[in-house]
Protein backbone atom coordinates (compact mmCIF):
# COMPACT_ATOMS: atom_id res chain seq x y z
CA UNK A 1 0.00 0.00 0.00
CA UNK A 2 2.95 2.30 -0.52
CA UNK A 3 1.29 3.64 -3.61
CA UNK A 4 -1.37 5.99 -2.38
CA UNK A 5 0.87 8.90 -3.22
CA UNK A 6 0.16 7.99 -6.80
CA UNK A 7 -3.41 9.10 -6.29
CA UNK A 8 -2.37 12.71 -6.60
CA UNK A 9 -1.26 11.88 -10.10
CA UNK A 10 -4.40 9.95 -10.85
CA UNK A 11 -6.59 12.71 -9.50
CA UNK A 12 -5.43 15.02 -12.23
CA UNK A 13 -7.08 12.59 -14.58
CA UNK A 14 -10.11 11.69 -12.54
CA UNK A 15 -11.44 9.27 -15.11
CA UNK A 16 -8.36 7.07 -14.73
CA UNK A 17 -8.45 7.10 -10.94
CA UNK A 18 -10.40 3.87 -10.47
CA UNK A 19 -8.35 1.92 -12.97
CA UNK A 20 -5.11 3.20 -11.47
CA UNK A 21 -6.14 2.40 -7.92
CA UNK A 22 -7.11 -1.14 -8.91
CA UNK A 23 -3.79 -1.65 -10.66
CA UNK A 24 -1.70 -0.16 -7.87
CA UNK A 25 -3.36 -2.25 -5.19
CA UNK A 26 -3.26 -5.33 -7.43
CA UNK A 27 -7.00 -5.77 -7.23
CA UNK A 28 -7.17 -5.45 -3.45
CA UNK A 29 -8.69 -1.99 -3.41
CA UNK A 30 -12.30 -3.22 -3.30
CA UNK A 31 -11.48 -5.33 -0.24
CA UNK A 32 -9.81 -2.31 1.38
CA UNK A 33 -12.89 -0.17 0.71
CA UNK A 34 -15.10 -2.89 2.25
CA UNK A 35 -12.86 -3.09 5.31
CA UNK A 36 -13.02 0.69 5.78
CA UNK A 37 -16.81 0.71 5.39
CA UNK A 38 -17.11 -2.15 7.91
CA UNK A 39 -15.90 0.23 10.65
CA UNK A 40 -19.21 2.09 10.31
CA UNK A 41 -22.27 0.45 11.95
CA UNK A 42 -24.62 -1.01 9.31
CA UNK A 43 -27.63 1.13 8.43
CA UNK A 44 -26.13 4.41 9.70
CA UNK A 45 -26.61 7.85 8.22
CA UNK A 46 -23.08 8.58 7.06
CA UNK A 47 -21.12 11.59 5.83
CA UNK A 48 -18.38 10.38 3.49
CA UNK A 49 -15.78 13.18 3.45
CA UNK A 50 -13.63 13.08 0.32
CA UNK A 51 -15.77 10.40 -1.33
CA UNK A 52 -13.92 10.80 -4.64
CA UNK A 53 -15.19 8.39 -7.27
CA UNK A 54 -17.31 6.63 -4.65
CA UNK A 55 -15.21 3.55 -3.81
CA UNK A 56 -15.94 3.51 -0.09
CA UNK A 57 -19.33 5.08 -0.73
CA UNK A 58 -20.45 1.99 -2.67
CA UNK A 59 -19.29 -0.27 0.16
CA UNK A 60 -21.24 1.87 2.66
CA UNK A 61 -24.39 1.63 0.54
CA UNK A 62 -23.96 -2.16 0.45
CA UNK A 63 -24.08 -2.05 4.25
CA UNK A 64 -27.49 -0.41 4.09
CA UNK A 65 -26.26 3.06 5.01
CA UNK A 66 -27.75 6.34 3.84
CA UNK A 67 -24.80 8.35 2.59
CA UNK A 68 -23.95 11.99 1.93
CA UNK A 69 -20.78 12.05 -0.13
CA UNK A 70 -18.78 15.28 -0.35
CA UNK A 71 -15.63 16.01 -2.32
CA UNK A 72 -13.83 19.14 -3.45
CA UNK A 73 -13.33 17.79 -6.98
CA UNK A 74 -16.24 18.16 -9.38
CA UNK A 75 -14.67 15.68 -11.81
CA UNK A 76 -14.40 12.95 -9.18
CA UNK A 77 -18.00 13.56 -8.10
CA UNK A 78 -19.21 13.31 -11.69
CA UNK A 79 -17.71 9.83 -11.91
CA UNK A 80 -19.23 8.85 -8.58
CA UNK A 81 -22.65 10.10 -9.76
CA UNK A 82 -22.35 8.00 -12.89
CA UNK A 83 -21.23 4.84 -11.08
CA UNK A 84 -23.80 5.18 -8.30
CA UNK A 85 -26.72 6.52 -10.34
CA UNK A 86 -29.20 4.08 -8.79
CA UNK A 87 -28.70 4.97 -5.10
CA UNK A 88 -28.68 8.66 -6.08
CA UNK A 89 -32.03 8.17 -7.85
CA UNK A 90 -33.69 6.38 -4.91
CA UNK A 91 -32.38 8.91 -2.38
CA UNK A 92 -29.95 6.70 -0.48
CA UNK A 93 -27.01 8.78 -1.70
CA UNK A 94 -26.55 12.53 -1.95
CA UNK A 95 -23.43 13.98 -3.58
CA UNK A 96 -22.25 17.53 -2.92
CA UNK A 97 -19.21 19.52 -4.00
CA UNK A 98 -17.84 20.86 -0.72
CA UNK A 99 -14.39 21.23 0.73
CA UNK A 100 -13.45 20.60 4.33
CA UNK A 101 -14.10 24.06 5.73
CA UNK A 102 -17.43 24.38 3.92
CA UNK A 103 -18.92 21.54 5.98
CA UNK A 104 -19.27 23.96 8.87
CA UNK A 105 -21.98 26.07 7.30
CA UNK A 106 -23.64 23.24 5.36
CA UNK A 107 -24.43 20.74 8.09
CA UNK A 108 -25.76 21.29 11.60
CA UNK A 109 -24.19 19.79 14.70
CA UNK A 110 -24.99 16.11 15.16
CA UNK A 111 -26.34 15.64 11.62
CA UNK A 112 -24.89 12.17 11.11
CA UNK A 113 -24.60 8.80 12.85
CA UNK A 114 -21.11 8.49 11.45
CA UNK A 115 -18.46 10.47 9.59
CA UNK A 116 -16.02 8.55 7.43
CA UNK A 117 -12.89 10.01 5.87
CA UNK A 118 -10.70 7.75 3.75
CA UNK A 119 -7.42 8.79 2.10
CA UNK A 120 -7.94 12.50 2.73
CA UNK A 121 -5.72 13.24 5.74
CA UNK A 122 -2.58 12.44 3.77
CA UNK A 123 -3.37 15.44 1.57
CA UNK A 124 -3.97 17.82 4.46
CA UNK A 125 -1.62 19.96 6.51
CA UNK A 126 -1.52 19.35 10.28
CA UNK A 127 -3.66 22.44 10.85
CA UNK A 128 -6.29 21.09 8.46
CA UNK A 129 -6.13 17.65 10.09
CA UNK A 130 -6.80 19.16 13.52
CA UNK A 131 -9.64 21.21 12.05
CA UNK A 132 -11.07 18.10 10.39
CA UNK A 133 -11.14 16.05 13.61
CA UNK A 134 -12.84 18.90 15.49
CA UNK A 135 -15.35 19.28 12.69
CA UNK A 136 -16.09 15.53 12.47
CA UNK A 137 -16.67 15.56 16.22
CA UNK A 138 -19.22 18.34 15.75
CA UNK A 139 -20.96 16.63 12.83
CA UNK A 140 -21.72 13.27 14.47
CA UNK A 141 -24.50 12.85 16.98
CA UNK A 142 -23.58 12.00 20.59
CA UNK A 143 -22.52 8.36 20.59
CA UNK A 144 -21.82 8.53 16.86
CA UNK A 145 -18.76 7.09 15.12
CA UNK A 146 -15.86 8.82 13.38
CA UNK A 147 -13.71 6.67 11.07
CA UNK A 148 -10.46 7.94 9.57
CA UNK A 149 -8.48 5.67 7.26
CA UNK A 150 -5.20 6.61 5.67
CA UNK A 151 -1.68 5.86 4.64
CA UNK A 152 0.61 5.71 7.68
CA UNK A 153 4.31 5.17 8.22
CA UNK A 154 4.86 1.57 9.43
CA UNK A 155 5.85 1.20 13.07
CA UNK A 156 8.71 -1.30 12.70
CA UNK A 157 12.03 -0.03 11.33
CA UNK A 158 12.38 -2.78 8.72
CA UNK A 159 8.87 -2.30 7.38
CA UNK A 160 9.46 1.45 7.37
CA UNK A 161 12.58 1.05 5.24
CA UNK A 162 10.85 -1.19 2.70
CA UNK A 163 7.88 1.14 2.62
CA UNK A 164 9.98 4.23 1.97
CA UNK A 165 11.96 2.38 -0.70
CA UNK A 166 8.81 1.36 -2.51
CA UNK A 167 7.18 4.75 -2.16
CA UNK A 168 10.07 6.96 -3.23
CA UNK A 169 9.96 6.35 -7.00
CA UNK A 170 6.18 6.77 -7.14
CA UNK A 171 6.35 9.90 -5.01
CA UNK A 172 9.09 11.35 -7.20
CA UNK A 173 7.21 10.63 -10.41
CA UNK A 174 4.00 12.07 -9.04
CA UNK A 175 5.79 15.14 -7.74
CA UNK A 176 7.52 15.79 -11.04
CA UNK A 177 4.28 15.50 -12.99
CA UNK A 178 1.84 17.23 -10.67
CA UNK A 179 4.12 19.11 -8.25
CA UNK A 180 2.02 17.85 -5.40
CA UNK A 181 2.46 15.02 -2.98
CA UNK A 182 0.83 13.34 -0.03
CA UNK A 183 2.33 12.80 3.39
CA UNK A 184 1.67 9.59 5.26
CA UNK A 185 0.04 10.63 8.48
CA UNK A 186 1.42 9.89 11.90
CA UNK A 187 -0.56 9.42 15.08
CA UNK A 188 -4.08 8.94 13.70
CA UNK A 189 -5.37 7.46 16.99
CA UNK A 190 -3.81 10.33 18.98
CA UNK A 191 -5.36 12.87 16.59
CA UNK A 192 -8.84 11.41 17.12
CA UNK A 193 -8.38 11.21 20.88
CA UNK A 194 -7.19 14.81 21.12
CA UNK A 195 -10.28 15.84 19.17
CA UNK A 196 -12.43 14.64 22.06
CA UNK A 197 -13.39 11.20 20.72
CA UNK A 198 -13.38 8.19 23.02
CA UNK A 199 -12.91 4.43 22.58
CA UNK A 200 -10.39 5.18 19.85
CA UNK A 201 -9.29 1.91 18.29
CA UNK A 202 -7.55 0.65 15.21
CA UNK A 203 -10.20 -1.15 13.23
CA UNK A 204 -7.94 -2.81 10.70
CA UNK A 205 -5.64 -2.13 7.79
CA UNK A 206 -2.05 -3.10 7.10
CA UNK A 207 1.30 -1.87 8.39
CA UNK A 208 1.12 1.13 6.04
CA UNK A 209 -2.63 1.67 5.90
CA UNK A 210 -4.55 2.27 9.08
CA UNK A 211 -8.27 2.38 9.82
CA UNK A 212 -8.99 4.17 13.07
CA UNK A 213 -12.38 4.74 14.65
CA UNK A 214 -13.59 6.70 17.66
CA UNK A 215 -16.89 7.53 19.27
CA UNK A 216 -18.31 10.87 20.31
CA UNK A 217 -19.15 10.68 24.02
CA UNK A 218 -22.88 10.13 24.48
CA UNK A 219 -24.39 12.69 26.81
CA UNK A 220 -27.07 12.00 29.37
CA UNK A 221 -30.36 13.72 28.47
CA UNK A 222 -30.05 15.82 31.63
CA UNK A 223 -26.71 17.17 30.47
CA UNK A 224 -28.18 18.17 27.12
CA UNK A 225 -31.14 20.00 28.57
Amino acid at each position, binding site marked *: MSSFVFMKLLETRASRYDLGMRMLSRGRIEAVYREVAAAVPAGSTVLDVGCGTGGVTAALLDRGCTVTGVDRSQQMLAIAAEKLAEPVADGRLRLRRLNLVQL*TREFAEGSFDAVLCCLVFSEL*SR*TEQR*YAVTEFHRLVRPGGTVVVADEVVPASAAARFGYRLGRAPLATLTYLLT*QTTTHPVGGLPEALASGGLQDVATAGGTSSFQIVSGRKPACRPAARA
Partner: protein
Amino acid sequence: MPAGSTRLSAAVRDAPVRSAVQLLFRSFPFAVEPGLRVFGNPGRSAPVFVTCNFDHTVRLVSAVLRDMGIDCYLLVAPTGGVNVWCASAGGHFGTDEVEAAIRLSGIDDLVDHHRLVLPRLASPGVDPREVRSRTGWRVVFGPIDVADLPRWMDESFPRLVADVVEFPARTRIEMGLGAALWPAGLVGIPAALVGGLWTGLASVLLGYLVSVLFALAYPYLPAKPGLPQAVPLAVALGVAGAVGGAVAGGTFQTVLWAAIGAAMGGLVALDFPSWSPTDVCKQQLLCFLYPATLAPAGFLPTVDRPACIDGCDICVKVCPKGALQLDALSKATLTDPDGCISCYACVQQCPVDAIS
Protein backbone atom coordinates in the same frame (compact mmCIF):
# COMPACT_ATOMS: atom_id res chain seq x y z
CA MET B 1 6.81 36.39 -8.89
CA PRO B 2 6.23 36.78 -5.18
CA ALA B 3 5.88 40.35 -4.12
CA GLY B 4 8.58 42.19 -2.22
CA SER B 5 11.58 40.68 -3.92
CA THR B 6 12.99 43.98 -5.10
CA ARG B 7 15.43 44.37 -2.24
CA LEU B 8 17.44 42.08 -0.02
CA SER B 9 14.84 41.76 2.68
CA ALA B 10 15.16 40.68 6.27
CA ALA B 11 13.66 37.36 5.22
CA VAL B 12 16.64 36.62 2.98
CA ARG B 13 19.16 37.80 5.57
CA ASP B 14 17.58 35.62 8.24
CA ALA B 15 17.69 32.42 6.19
CA PRO B 16 20.18 32.79 3.31
CA VAL B 17 20.59 29.07 2.54
CA ARG B 18 16.88 28.42 2.51
CA SER B 19 16.30 31.47 0.35
CA ALA B 20 18.99 30.36 -2.08
CA VAL B 21 17.53 26.85 -2.38
CA GLN B 22 14.09 28.29 -2.95
CA LEU B 23 15.49 30.64 -5.56
CA LEU B 24 17.16 27.85 -7.53
CA PHE B 25 14.09 25.61 -7.25
CA ARG B 26 11.56 28.39 -7.79
CA SER B 27 9.40 26.21 -10.03
CA PHE B 28 8.56 23.93 -7.11
CA PRO B 29 6.05 24.74 -4.41
CA PHE B 30 7.37 25.05 -0.85
CA ALA B 31 4.40 24.73 1.45
CA VAL B 32 4.21 25.89 5.05
CA GLU B 33 1.46 25.22 7.56
CA PRO B 34 -1.62 27.29 6.80
CA GLY B 35 -3.40 29.06 9.63
CA LEU B 36 -2.76 31.91 12.01
CA ARG B 37 0.41 33.94 12.63
CA VAL B 38 0.43 36.59 15.35
CA PHE B 39 2.60 39.73 15.27
CA GLY B 40 3.08 41.82 18.41
CA ASN B 41 0.14 42.00 20.76
CA PRO B 42 -2.94 42.44 18.55
CA GLY B 43 -6.18 43.69 20.06
CA ARG B 44 -9.75 43.20 18.86
CA SER B 45 -9.42 45.87 16.18
CA ALA B 46 -6.01 44.77 14.88
CA PRO B 47 -5.64 44.51 11.10
CA VAL B 48 -5.87 41.07 9.51
CA PHE B 49 -3.66 40.27 6.53
CA VAL B 50 -3.88 37.23 4.28
CA THR B 51 -1.20 35.59 2.16
CA CYS B 52 -0.42 32.32 0.38
CA ASN B 53 1.43 29.40 2.01
CA PHE B 54 4.52 29.60 -0.22
CA ASP B 55 7.35 29.57 2.33
CA HIS B 56 9.33 32.36 0.62
CA THR B 57 6.32 34.68 0.55
CA VAL B 58 5.32 33.96 4.15
CA ARG B 59 8.86 34.84 5.26
CA LEU B 60 8.89 38.05 3.18
CA VAL B 61 5.51 39.18 4.48
CA SER B 62 6.41 38.25 8.07
CA ALA B 63 9.63 40.24 7.85
CA VAL B 64 7.78 43.32 6.58
CA LEU B 65 5.12 43.05 9.29
CA ARG B 66 7.81 42.63 11.96
CA ASP B 67 9.72 45.64 10.61
CA MET B 68 6.54 47.72 10.63
CA GLY B 69 6.23 46.88 14.31
CA ILE B 70 2.43 46.75 14.15
CA ASP B 71 0.19 44.48 16.15
CA CYS B 72 -1.68 42.35 13.64
CA TYR B 73 -2.73 38.91 12.47
CA LEU B 74 -1.54 37.13 9.34
CA LEU B 75 -3.71 34.35 7.90
CA VAL B 76 -1.84 31.87 5.75
CA ALA B 77 -4.20 30.36 3.17
CA PRO B 78 -3.70 26.76 1.98
CA THR B 79 -2.65 27.51 -1.62
CA GLY B 80 -0.62 24.35 -2.11
CA GLY B 81 2.71 26.05 -1.44
CA VAL B 82 2.31 28.14 -4.59
CA ASN B 83 2.98 31.90 -4.63
CA VAL B 84 0.19 34.48 -4.67
CA TRP B 85 -0.05 35.40 -8.33
CA CYS B 86 0.49 31.94 -9.83
CA ALA B 87 -1.91 30.43 -7.31
CA SER B 88 -4.65 32.98 -7.87
CA ALA B 89 -4.33 33.01 -11.67
CA GLY B 90 -4.20 29.21 -11.63
CA GLY B 91 -7.25 28.69 -9.42
CA HIS B 92 -5.41 27.68 -6.23
CA PHE B 93 -5.90 30.94 -4.31
CA GLY B 94 -9.55 31.82 -4.66
CA THR B 95 -12.63 32.26 -2.56
CA ASP B 96 -12.38 28.69 -1.21
CA GLU B 97 -8.85 29.25 0.07
CA VAL B 98 -9.73 32.59 1.69
CA GLU B 99 -12.67 30.88 3.39
CA ALA B 100 -10.32 28.10 4.53
CA ALA B 101 -7.85 30.67 5.91
CA ILE B 102 -10.66 32.28 7.93
CA ARG B 103 -11.95 28.97 9.33
CA LEU B 104 -8.58 27.34 9.99
CA SER B 105 -7.26 30.39 11.84
CA GLY B 106 -10.31 30.91 14.04
CA ILE B 107 -9.93 34.65 13.35
CA ASP B 108 -13.70 35.15 13.81
CA ASP B 109 -13.21 34.84 17.56
CA LEU B 110 -10.17 37.12 17.74
CA VAL B 111 -11.27 40.45 16.27
CA ASP B 112 -14.45 42.52 16.23
CA HIS B 113 -14.17 43.82 12.65
CA HIS B 114 -14.56 41.84 9.45
CA ARG B 115 -11.96 43.29 7.12
CA LEU B 116 -9.28 41.22 5.41
CA VAL B 117 -6.32 42.78 3.64
CA LEU B 118 -5.36 40.56 0.70
CA PRO B 119 -2.36 40.82 -1.61
CA ARG B 120 -3.38 42.72 -4.75
CA LEU B 121 -2.25 39.88 -7.00
CA ALA B 122 -4.83 37.57 -5.42
CA SER B 123 -7.42 39.58 -7.38
CA PRO B 124 -7.55 37.18 -10.37
CA GLY B 125 -8.81 34.39 -8.12
CA VAL B 126 -10.71 35.85 -5.17
CA ASP B 127 -14.31 37.04 -5.60
CA PRO B 128 -14.90 39.56 -2.76
CA ARG B 129 -18.70 39.32 -3.02
CA GLU B 130 -18.59 35.55 -2.66
CA VAL B 131 -16.20 35.79 0.30
CA ARG B 132 -18.56 38.24 1.97
CA SER B 133 -21.69 36.19 1.42
CA ARG B 134 -20.02 33.00 2.64
CA THR B 135 -18.12 34.36 5.62
CA GLY B 136 -19.26 37.92 6.38
CA TRP B 137 -15.71 39.18 5.82
CA ARG B 138 -14.99 42.13 3.53
CA VAL B 139 -12.00 41.87 1.24
CA VAL B 140 -9.67 44.83 0.76
CA PHE B 141 -6.80 44.58 -1.69
CA GLY B 142 -3.48 46.02 -0.54
CA PRO B 143 -0.46 46.89 -2.68
CA ILE B 144 1.19 44.55 -5.19
CA ASP B 145 4.62 44.60 -3.57
CA VAL B 146 4.54 43.83 0.15
CA ALA B 147 7.42 46.30 0.58
CA ASP B 148 4.86 49.03 -0.20
CA LEU B 149 2.57 47.83 2.62
CA PRO B 150 3.77 50.35 5.26
CA ARG B 151 3.14 53.31 2.93
CA TRP B 152 -0.23 51.90 1.83
CA MET B 153 -1.28 51.44 5.46
CA ASP B 154 -0.30 55.05 6.23
CA GLU B 155 -1.76 56.72 3.18
CA SER B 156 -4.45 54.60 1.58
CA PHE B 157 -5.80 51.86 3.87
CA PRO B 158 -8.42 50.57 3.23
CA ARG B 159 -8.87 52.15 -0.21
CA LEU B 160 -8.13 50.37 -3.46
CA VAL B 161 -5.43 52.34 -5.26
CA ALA B 162 -4.06 51.84 -8.76
CA ASP B 163 -0.89 49.78 -8.77
CA VAL B 164 0.97 48.05 -11.58
CA VAL B 165 3.34 45.10 -11.66
CA GLU B 166 6.93 45.89 -12.42
CA PHE B 167 9.81 43.57 -13.08
CA PRO B 168 12.98 45.60 -12.40
CA ALA B 169 16.33 44.15 -13.47
CA ARG B 170 16.96 42.70 -10.02
CA THR B 171 13.70 40.77 -10.06
CA ARG B 172 14.37 39.59 -13.60
CA ILE B 173 17.79 38.22 -12.55
CA GLU B 174 16.07 36.22 -9.81
CA MET B 175 13.52 34.94 -12.32
CA GLY B 176 16.28 34.05 -14.78
CA LEU B 177 18.10 32.03 -12.10
CA GLY B 178 14.93 30.19 -11.10
CA ALA B 179 13.85 29.58 -14.69
CA ALA B 180 17.23 28.15 -15.71
CA LEU B 181 16.68 24.88 -13.82
CA TRP B 182 14.61 23.13 -16.48
CA PRO B 183 16.57 24.15 -19.57
CA ALA B 184 19.89 23.52 -17.79
CA GLY B 185 18.74 20.09 -16.60
CA LEU B 186 16.98 19.04 -19.78
CA VAL B 187 20.00 19.89 -21.91
CA GLY B 188 22.78 19.34 -19.34
CA ILE B 189 21.93 15.71 -18.51
CA PRO B 190 21.80 14.45 -22.12
CA ALA B 191 24.92 16.54 -22.86
CA ALA B 192 26.74 14.85 -19.98
CA LEU B 193 25.67 11.41 -21.22
CA VAL B 194 26.82 12.13 -24.76
CA GLY B 195 29.87 14.34 -24.22
CA GLY B 196 30.98 13.50 -20.69
CA LEU B 197 30.77 15.19 -17.29
CA TRP B 198 32.58 18.40 -18.24
CA THR B 199 30.40 18.93 -21.29
CA GLY B 200 27.36 18.47 -19.05
CA LEU B 201 28.59 20.94 -16.44
CA ALA B 202 29.51 23.46 -19.12
CA SER B 203 25.99 23.10 -20.59
CA VAL B 204 24.41 23.70 -17.20
CA LEU B 205 26.50 26.85 -16.70
CA LEU B 206 25.60 27.96 -20.21
CA GLY B 207 21.93 27.40 -19.36
CA TYR B 208 22.12 29.67 -16.32
CA LEU B 209 24.04 32.32 -18.24
CA VAL B 210 21.61 32.33 -21.19
CA SER B 211 18.60 32.35 -18.88
CA VAL B 212 19.79 35.34 -16.84
CA LEU B 213 20.83 37.30 -19.94
CA PHE B 214 17.50 36.49 -21.59
CA ALA B 215 15.67 37.67 -18.49
CA LEU B 216 17.61 40.94 -18.48
CA ALA B 217 16.97 41.53 -22.17
CA TYR B 218 13.33 40.37 -22.08
CA PRO B 219 11.57 43.78 -21.94
CA TYR B 220 13.66 45.06 -24.86
CA LEU B 221 13.18 42.08 -27.21
CA PRO B 222 11.60 43.09 -30.52
CA ALA B 223 9.90 39.71 -31.16
CA LYS B 224 6.76 38.41 -29.43
CA PRO B 225 7.01 35.61 -26.82
CA GLY B 226 6.93 32.02 -28.04
CA LEU B 227 8.41 30.83 -31.32
CA PRO B 228 9.19 34.35 -32.64
CA GLN B 229 11.70 34.67 -29.78
CA ALA B 230 12.73 31.02 -29.56
CA VAL B 231 13.65 30.35 -33.19
CA PRO B 232 16.12 33.25 -33.63
CA LEU B 233 17.73 32.54 -30.26
CA ALA B 234 18.03 28.81 -31.02
CA VAL B 235 19.59 29.58 -34.40
CA ALA B 236 21.99 32.16 -32.96
CA LEU B 237 23.13 29.92 -30.11
CA GLY B 238 23.30 26.90 -32.42
CA VAL B 239 25.63 28.78 -34.77
CA ALA B 240 27.69 30.08 -31.85
CA GLY B 241 27.90 26.53 -30.47
CA ALA B 242 29.00 25.17 -33.84
CA VAL B 243 31.71 27.82 -34.14
CA GLY B 244 32.87 27.18 -30.59
CA GLY B 245 32.89 23.42 -31.18
CA ALA B 246 34.82 23.82 -34.42
CA VAL B 247 37.44 25.95 -32.68
CA ALA B 248 37.76 23.34 -29.93
CA GLY B 249 38.29 20.78 -32.69
CA GLY B 250 36.49 17.93 -34.44
CA THR B 251 33.19 17.30 -36.20
CA PHE B 252 31.79 15.64 -33.09
CA GLN B 253 32.36 18.74 -30.92
CA THR B 254 30.94 20.99 -33.66
CA VAL B 255 27.70 19.00 -33.94
CA LEU B 256 27.38 18.45 -30.19
CA TRP B 257 27.79 22.12 -29.26
CA ALA B 258 25.57 23.25 -32.10
CA ALA B 259 22.84 20.98 -30.71
CA ILE B 260 23.44 22.10 -27.11
CA GLY B 261 23.34 25.79 -28.09
CA ALA B 262 20.20 25.44 -30.20
CA ALA B 263 18.34 23.37 -27.59
CA MET B 264 19.32 25.74 -24.79
CA GLY B 265 18.29 28.84 -26.74
CA GLY B 266 14.97 27.34 -27.74
CA LEU B 267 14.09 26.03 -24.27
CA VAL B 268 15.06 29.20 -22.42
CA ALA B 269 13.11 31.42 -24.81
CA LEU B 270 10.04 29.19 -24.74
CA ASP B 271 10.00 28.65 -20.99
CA PHE B 272 10.92 32.07 -19.61
CA PRO B 273 7.75 33.95 -20.61
CA SER B 274 5.70 31.51 -18.58
CA TRP B 275 7.56 32.57 -15.45
CA SER B 276 4.91 35.03 -14.58
CA PRO B 277 1.25 34.88 -15.52
CA THR B 278 2.31 37.85 -17.64
CA ASP B 279 2.88 35.87 -20.76
CA VAL B 280 1.82 32.30 -20.03
CA CYS B 281 -1.10 32.49 -22.37
CA LYS B 282 0.50 34.74 -24.93
CA GLN B 283 3.23 32.24 -25.48
CA GLN B 284 0.57 29.51 -25.84
CA LEU B 285 2.93 26.68 -26.79
CA LEU B 286 3.60 25.39 -23.30
CA CYS B 287 0.18 26.21 -21.86
CA PHE B 288 -0.60 22.51 -21.50
CA LEU B 289 2.32 22.04 -19.11
CA TYR B 290 1.02 24.51 -16.56
CA PRO B 291 -2.03 24.27 -14.35
CA ALA B 292 -4.94 25.68 -16.29
CA THR B 293 -5.24 29.39 -15.73
CA LEU B 294 -8.72 30.71 -15.03
CA ALA B 295 -8.66 32.70 -18.25
CA PRO B 296 -8.64 30.82 -21.56
CA ALA B 297 -5.51 31.25 -23.69
CA GLY B 298 -5.42 34.58 -25.50
CA PHE B 299 -8.30 35.99 -23.43
CA LEU B 300 -9.01 39.72 -23.77
CA PRO B 301 -11.68 41.37 -21.60
CA THR B 302 -14.76 42.82 -23.27
CA VAL B 303 -16.88 45.32 -21.37
CA ASP B 304 -20.68 45.11 -21.48
CA ARG B 305 -21.15 48.86 -21.77
CA PRO B 306 -24.82 49.13 -20.70
CA ALA B 307 -24.09 47.05 -17.59
CA CYS B 308 -20.84 48.87 -16.71
CA ILE B 309 -21.38 51.34 -13.86
CA ASP B 310 -20.58 54.95 -14.85
CA GLY B 311 -17.45 56.13 -13.12
CA CYS B 312 -16.76 52.86 -11.28
CA ASP B 313 -13.05 52.30 -11.77
CA ILE B 314 -12.43 49.09 -9.85
CA CYS B 315 -11.21 47.25 -12.95
CA VAL B 316 -9.04 50.21 -13.95
CA LYS B 317 -7.34 50.20 -10.55
CA VAL B 318 -7.13 46.44 -10.19
CA CYS B 319 -5.52 45.83 -13.60
CA PRO B 320 -1.86 44.99 -12.83
CA LYS B 321 -0.77 46.41 -16.19
CA GLY B 322 -2.92 49.55 -16.32
CA ALA B 323 -4.47 48.33 -19.56
CA LEU B 324 -8.02 49.55 -18.81
CA GLN B 325 -9.14 53.19 -18.64
CA LEU B 326 -12.39 55.08 -18.22
CA ASP B 327 -13.48 56.65 -21.50
CA ALA B 328 -15.25 60.00 -22.05
CA LEU B 329 -18.58 58.44 -21.02
CA SER B 330 -17.02 57.11 -17.78
CA LYS B 331 -17.23 53.50 -18.97
CA ALA B 332 -14.32 51.06 -18.68
CA THR B 333 -12.47 50.39 -21.92
CA LEU B 334 -9.53 48.20 -22.77
CA THR B 335 -7.09 50.79 -24.09
CA ASP B 336 -3.96 48.67 -24.23
CA PRO B 337 -4.78 45.18 -25.59
CA ASP B 338 -1.08 44.41 -26.04
CA GLY B 339 -0.46 45.23 -22.40
CA CYS B 340 -3.31 42.97 -21.19
CA ILE B 341 -1.93 39.75 -19.72
CA SER B 342 -5.20 37.82 -19.54
CA CYS B 343 -4.89 37.55 -15.77
CA TYR B 344 -8.67 37.70 -15.17
CA ALA B 345 -8.48 40.23 -12.31
CA CYS B 346 -10.91 42.66 -14.02
CA VAL B 347 -13.44 39.89 -14.69
CA GLN B 348 -13.25 38.62 -11.13
CA GLN B 349 -13.46 42.05 -9.48
CA CYS B 350 -16.19 43.70 -11.58
CA PRO B 351 -19.06 44.27 -9.11
CA VAL B 352 -21.74 43.83 -11.79
CA ASP B 353 -20.11 41.07 -13.86
CA ALA B 354 -19.95 43.40 -16.85
CA ILE B 355 -16.57 42.12 -18.02
CA SER B 356 -16.16 38.80 -19.73
